[in-house]
């Protein structure tokens, strides 16, 4: 047990490290690569995106705790790179609007401007590093919480926090009232919903974790929700939790009830 505890911080530090790209001459974080390509400091045509993706897959296999957010971030950057690559391979595809922003014939015309901009941003990059270090240190201590409902969260006087909580609440309330008219057929008649935002999945993960920590629950109970969006979010949350090894999902007999338990 002690060994296990000693092993923990190391894994966390590794996770903190995030994904590093090694492509040709470039070595560094993906957002920097993306930035360099988008600001035309690097030629997108030279990018080996297959290599990028396989490096990412290798990274995923090694680090077991990548969050949905981080994965979404990767896909967002990777697709931006892909778009740039497509544009550079098929210049005719580029639309007029972009042409204005990055004059084709003078790719490095604004080098000075860019240098200035990156210079100006450097302190913030360092500040982010400083914050990360502070957070790591601070998170080694835990405060006492009487109950989860009472975690002090909003500054007194946070008017916009107040208002947005109200409008979210109203949205959920109306949705739940509408859920009465749910029917199996109508589920497929509609155009499918957009993929729910990852933060909803994360919120749902926290909720689920709280309830299954108290006692093991059956999948049937967890999926009782008639609201389609919540159902999808719940399923995604369960999948993600099982991927991260936070829950144990088991079925003791064929066609029997499936139980979900905290690990």
């Amino acid at each position, binding site marked *: 047990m002690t060994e296990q505890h000693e092993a923990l911080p190391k894994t966390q530090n590794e996770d903190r490290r995030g994904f590093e790209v090694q492509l040709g001459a470039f070595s560094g974080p993906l957002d920097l690569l993306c930035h360099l390509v988008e600001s035309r400091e690097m030629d997108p045509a030279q990018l080996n995106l297959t290599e990028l993706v396989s490096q990412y897959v290798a990274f995923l296999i090694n680090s077991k705790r990548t969050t949905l957010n981080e994965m979404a971030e990767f896909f967002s950057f990777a697709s931006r790179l892909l778009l740039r690559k497509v544009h550079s391979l098929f210049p005719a595809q580029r639309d007029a609007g972009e042409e204005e922003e990055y004059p084709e014939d003078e790719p490095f015309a604004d080098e000075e401007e860019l240098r200035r901009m990156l210079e100006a941003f450097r302190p913030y990059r360092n500040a982010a590093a400083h914050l990360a270090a502070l957070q790591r240190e601070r998170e080694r201590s835990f405060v*006492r919480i009487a109950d989860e409902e009472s975690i002090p969260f909003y500054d007194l006087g946070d008017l916009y926090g*107040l208002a947005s909580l109200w409008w979210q609440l109203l949205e959920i309330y109306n949705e739940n009232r509408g859920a009465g008219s749910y029917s199996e057929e109508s589920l497929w008649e509609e155009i499918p919903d957009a993929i729910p935002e990852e933060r909803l999945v994360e919120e749902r993960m926290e909720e689920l974790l709280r309830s299954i920590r108290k006692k093991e629950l059956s999948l049937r109970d967890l999926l009782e929700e008639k609201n389609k969006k919540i159902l999808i979010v719940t399923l995604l949350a369960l999948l993600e939790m099982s991927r991260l090894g936070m829950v144990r999902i088991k079925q003791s007999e064929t066609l029997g009830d499936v139980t979900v338990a905290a690990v």
Partner: protein
Amino acid sequence: MQQSDENVKKEMGLLERQVEAMLFVSPQPVSSQEIASYLGVTTARVESAVRTIKEIYEASHGLTILFAAGGWQMATAPDLAETIEAFSGSVSLQKVRLSKAALETLAVIAYNQPVTRSEIEDIRSVRCDRVVDTLLKHGLVRIAGRKKSVGSPLLFRTTERFLEIFGLAGISSLPSLDELKEYRSDDGVFDSLEGPDKVSEEDDSDEWIRQ
């Protein structure tokens, strides 16, 4: 985890420190068995560690260890009861912060006043008597009479103090859904990469899940 059993009296070793920290963070009482199996020691050792902590606390600290519901629980020393009771209930806390539950309840009251507790609970779909009490204590809401209906339940309203703290001229200036949004039309190139989610600014119903 290898202290000798001789110096258990009075001295806090690693085991005592671990037990102390565990009792501190735990919201419910924790049984000796639970601690023992977690730390991989015998319950006898856990109990002697708890006794040590308890003795040290009683000798000079403002805290104590209680035994309740089959487990150990950290609490404030009984002789400080008056001080602490008044302090934790004190409205003068300069920097009150609100939990999500409290702010949500306050939002329901603000946008729907006057409103009864069961109406609040209907919207939030959780009980909220404790939260309403907190808000009353902080002077953010007040009782504004009784509703003329079965059981004549109490009606709640926000106070002047609420308006002051949230910087509102009046209840009518509470932000509308539109006011919470950014109006953006000149975002240029990246917009097209993010899909159509930003197009639907008019779609009021969907600020929570953007489609």
